[in-house]
């Protein structure tokens, strides 16, 4: 079983990459959008800092680096599962979700391979974009090796949190058949509270307190704050512990929801 799981997982994880590979126009379009978006964001932040040197403890260089990294992490993630009719909500609406439960690979493991493949694919784009931006001098490298390591550690755990949050929104689809409002709200909350639109440091105190109590900031704001040196290394153990706590909690919750989701598959369609 475990021997079989490796190749089956590999091929399943590669579905997104292979799909994109088969539609070069879509890949070009995605690359174009990413490049334009990066350019615009860089211009916006430079313009905002035109009359300021330090704001919310961030210098212009730190703010630009943060914004570029956030775009690189968030944007490629929005790859095109939708027009490939391969989102969970579509499978539920079209009734094809039933096949997920007809294969010797458990649905939750199939989902994991697919989603992990998506994340790796998105990160490949992000890495390529990062290297280009670094070479072009658009963003700065981390100020110290320690900051780089702290970023790497919190980023890895942040990706796990991201996986579980996305899984949670997809699992909600089993209960909200009609349309995807819940998913939209989750995506949106995720982007705002994670610090993808702007570093949470810029926000008022009550907003930072709110996001500190939620898992979203663990995905972007925490790792990027370590990267630009806005969070000191002394904060690392605490942040790692918090991220670990969220991973465990979300893992348990989503595991529980999978067992309930299987029961919901039958409720739809003849």
């Amino acid at each position, binding site marked *: 079983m475990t021997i079989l799981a490796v190749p*089956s997982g590999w091929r399943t994880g590669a579905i997104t990459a292979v799909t994109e590979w*088969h539609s070069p126009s879509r890949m070009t379009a995605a690359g174009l959008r990413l490049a334009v978006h990066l350019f615009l964001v860089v211009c916006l932040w430079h313009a905002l800092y035109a009359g300021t040197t330090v704001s919310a403890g961030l210098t212009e260089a730190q703010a630009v680096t943060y914004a570029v990294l956030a775009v690189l992490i968030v944007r490629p993630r929005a790859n095109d599962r939708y027009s*490939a009719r391969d989102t969970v909500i579509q499978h539920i609406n079209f009734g094809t979700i039933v096949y997920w439960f*007809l294969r010797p690979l458990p649905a939750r493991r199939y989902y994991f391979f697919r989603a992990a493949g998506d994340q790796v694919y998105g990160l490949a784009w992000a890495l390529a974009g990062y290297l280009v931006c670094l070479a072009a001098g658009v963003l700065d490298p981390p100020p110290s090796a320690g900051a780089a390591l702290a970023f790497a550690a919190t980023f890895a755990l942040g990706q796990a949190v991201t996986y579980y949050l996305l899984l949670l929104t997809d699992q909600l689809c089993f209960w909200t058949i009609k349309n995807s409002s819940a998913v939209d709200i989750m995506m949106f909350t995720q982007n705002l509270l994670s610090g993808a639109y702007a570093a949470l440091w810029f926000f008022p105190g009550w907003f930072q307190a709110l996001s500190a109590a939620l898992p979203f900031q663990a995905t972007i704001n925490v790792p990027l704050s370590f990267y630009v040196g806005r969070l000191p290394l002394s904060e690392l153990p605490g942040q790692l512990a918090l991220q670990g706590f969220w991973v465990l909690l979300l893992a348990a919750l989503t595991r529980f929801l999978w067992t309930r989701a299987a029961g919901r598959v039958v409720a739809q369609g003849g």
Partner: protein
Amino acid sequence: MTQMSTLDRLSRPASESAIEVRRLVKTFRTARRSPGVRGALRALIAPELESKTAVDDVSFSVATGELLALLGPNGAGKSTTIKVLTGILTPTSGQATVAGVVPYRERERNARNIGAVFGQRTQLWWDLPARESFRILRDIYGVAPGDYKARMREFDELLELCSFWDTRVRHLSLGQRVRCDLAAALLHDPPVVVLDEPTIGMDVVAKEQVRELLRHQVERRGRTVLLTTHDMTEVERLAERVVLINHGRIVLDGTLTEMRERFGRGWRVHVTLTGPDERPCPPGLTVLERDGARLVLGPTGGADAVPTHQALKRIIERYEVMDIRVEESDLEDVMRAAYRDARQESPA
């Protein structure tokens, strides 16, 4: 008589049958929605539950290498039965085994034994060439490379896949896509195949190709096939045995001939006479319609009271006949009668 044949089948040893369903019951509980704001609030806090029995004491079995058509009107309980057999649904009571495995207890083991196609729902990846989907499924089911190659060659011979299997699924025609779906379902060589309305919406040629494949799978490969369909031609071409289900209960389990005997309304003879003729009808026959020189006659009493050849002889002896034609009820008529009959037996 149906009762007898069911019991007879149940008494067979289990090893002979690929699918075995005993006294299956599945009851769903759904929240009843009352109108108005108060009803909506109540549904949120303390929903009123009502239970609906989709399958009610169903027993049947399918022998290894047999093709069985599961028939019944929409909402009869066919899909629920199939979902139990594929392991998606756990029955309220009763039990089912597929190739010796209880599907809802060992879903994954059962998944290796069955292949399934659900009508217009495709399991192929929409934006990938069909062949990529086959490769993904090969890995998921752990099919050895040699077997995979051999089977793909076989499916290509039977279904002519190679002309379009490098096309992305979204660009395939329905017929092409269902053929790919069948290949995908058979890729891991499952002994049992479950098909829920596989040819729905397909053109005649594509339908014939699919039927040919199914016949081949049953006769040459010895696979057991459970098929649901509303296409009576399909039933006639493929199935020797049918199970007719309505309102969650089995109405008939037998051969097509048995079904015709039970629900067919027998024969009719259309006669055109040389001129108007007021002579009474021969014994054992009755005039159903009379339009000048044209008559429609049927048997009095039961369908088998007078055999057709006897009736023809009596008619020709009695009348001056210009033209004569025998009409036997076709399968659609039989089905219509059977569904209606079942409705009367157990009013919903």
